[in-house]
């Protein structure tokens, strides 16, 4: 279980992102940030506060409301010596940059026979329950995870967010980096010193013996909360965070399921044809002869996300939902 040294200070998820960007902007002249209201405003989430003051408007660039245009510009700049970090305010807007990410960024290296590279990072958000309704609450990371040539990162803690973002910026491939906007204020230990976290290395957030809970992004917190409650009733849950859906650390997931013989996959994207499907299918196949129960999936409800608080909260998996599912799988009633 990778974590910072004991004496690391506590900072928020938002601060961790900000630090990662600041350090990379300092380290590498070629890195720049481009997006809507990223400079003086520091984004509506204030995640980039202070960066334009240190690095100037030439490296922290406000743009028109042109998601496709700035992403396309980023792809071209990445192909010609720069390392752009494109800010797409809400994850829902990735629908606008799909051609640039899917048909351009993801394919240039392969189509050119390996001669061209596209070291671009697209930072965007995900996560519901913010009362922002159907077009500002989606978690669409599955759409990009489906595309060969792209890497997809879904950090769940300030520590992971910082280390993974630095890795993303140094990676020579296009990377989609999803930040759950509901976690920006989440605090966690982050070492003062420099570190990076490799892609494709799942992290065991909590080890356990009876059941494996694979969770991504904000659902990791939900899983950890559920694990605590389960412990009280004598069920030892192992919580695993893939950290990157692409590349995906299949072996760690499979090994854990083999050990516990039961697995639940929790992700905030729509359940159907989403991340839970891929991971559940991999575990059900890889741990087939070890499973005592079917692998269960818990994604966001397959509905456009409703505005009303009375409805929205029903669409996202909760600690209690996970606990109930775990109890059923473990035959506890």
């Amino acid at each position, binding site marked *: 279980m990778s974590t910072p040294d004991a004496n690391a200070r506590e900072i928020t998820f938002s601060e961790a992102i900000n630090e990662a960007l600041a350090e990379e902007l300092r380290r590498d002249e070629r890195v720049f940030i481009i997006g809507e209201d990223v400079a003086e405003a520091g984004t509506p989430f204030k995640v980039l506060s202070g960066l334009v003051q240190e690095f100037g408007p030439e490296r922290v660039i406000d743009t028109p409301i042109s998601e496709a245009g700035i992403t396309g510009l980023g792809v071209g700049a990445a192909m010609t010596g720069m390392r752009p970090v494109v800010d797409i305010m809400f994850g829902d*807007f990735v629908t*606008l940059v799909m051609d640039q990410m899917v048909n351009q960024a993801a394919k240039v290296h392969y189509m050119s026979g390996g001669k061209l590279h596209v070291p671009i990072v697209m930072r965007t958000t995900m996560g519901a329950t913010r009362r922002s309704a159907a*077009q500002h609450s989606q978690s669409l990371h599955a759409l990009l995870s489906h595309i060969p040539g792209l890497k997809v990162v879904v950090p769940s803690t300030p520590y992971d967010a910082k280390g993974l973002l630095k890795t993303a910026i140094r990676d020579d491939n296009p990377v989609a980096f999803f930040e759950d906007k509901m976690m920006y204020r989440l605090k966690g230990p982050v070492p003062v010193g420099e570190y990076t976290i490799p892609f494709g290395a799942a992290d065991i957030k909590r080890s356990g013996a009876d059941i494996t809970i694979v969770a991504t992004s904000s659902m990791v917190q939900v899983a950890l909360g559920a694990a605590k409650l389960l412990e009280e009733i004598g069920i030892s849950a192992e919580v695993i965070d893939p950290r990157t859906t692409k590349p995906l650390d299949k072996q760690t997931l499979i090994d854990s399921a083999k050990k516990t013989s039961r697995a639940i996959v929790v992700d905030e994207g729509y359940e159907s044809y989403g991340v839970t499907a891929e991971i559940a299918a991999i575990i059900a196949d890889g741990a087939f002869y070890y499973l005592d129960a079917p692998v269960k999936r818990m994604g966001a409800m397959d509905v456009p996300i409703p505005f009303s608080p009375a409805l929205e909260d029903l669409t996202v998996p909760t600690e209690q939902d996970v606990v109930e599912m775990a109890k059923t799988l473990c035959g506890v009633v």
Partner: protein
Amino acid sequence: MSSMEKDKQKEIIDIELYLHMYQQMAKIRLFELEVNELYLSAKMPGLAHLYIGQEAVAVGVCEALTREDYITSTHRGHGHCLAKGAEVDRMFAELLGKEAGYCRGKGGSMHIADPESGNLGANAIVGGSAGIATGAGFAAKRLGNERVAVCFFGEGALGQGLLYEVMNLAQLWRLPVIYVCENNLYNEYTHYTETTAGELSARPQAFGMHTEIVDGQDVRAVYEATKRLVERARRGEGPAFLLCETYRYRGHHVGDIDRSYYRSKEEELDWETHRDPLKNLADWMLAQGLCDQRTLDQIQSDVEAEVKAGVEFALNTPYPDASEVDQHVYA
């Protein structure tokens, strides 16, 4: 009827029109102030983008439309919805996520739709409804029902490629669509001149589209311009682009309190004191002797009562039942 009588009658009609536009603007202004209160008192879920300062655009445009004509709106859409005929109480109910809201609480502030009043819906994707409005104009032309479609959007939406694709289609096929661009000077926290190369009005003109620029704080001017463009469209002369110069008095959304880093208090004050659409219309009507102060005070108190009643209703009406969560995913 003698021409003198005609003039007299026209004047009466005009007075009624002006007073009605004043009432509509006053209603929107008060509605939005109440929305802000609901936010500050933590009674409203999420955020809202207030229309305060831009009332003359929504009202001037919608007064020139029939109830059957279509509009599409934006994240800053309360004014458009009310101007097109939505009721205050069901608007508040939607903003609070209640079942009595226009969308049963499922849409919220950025997605109010009311087909009965021709409102095809607000949209939280900047420029996202440009295709919808153009398609509504296309359908109107094909069905020969004489309707026109108005697409409201902010100047920031001209950053979206979709606008150019559909303006080309609308002009190519002479569709009855009016693109109403509200230039309130800011894309969120960035001044539009920092995001706009060339003149905004040159964008539609590049497609040969009829384009007019109007003072968005003068409701009569907006109304007259829209009337002309609507008549053109109904006559089959095709789409038009109406660029309205306006200003939002408040923050980008209710939570945008400290704005000093992107605009000055002076600028805000200047618009509020010299270019307020309500004040300007009131002063003009009084100066012209078209009405007296009592009439205006009456309107004000009527509207206050309506808004007060509306918010009361909304606060006390129930949330949708949990069973609704997966209803209306498919027809």
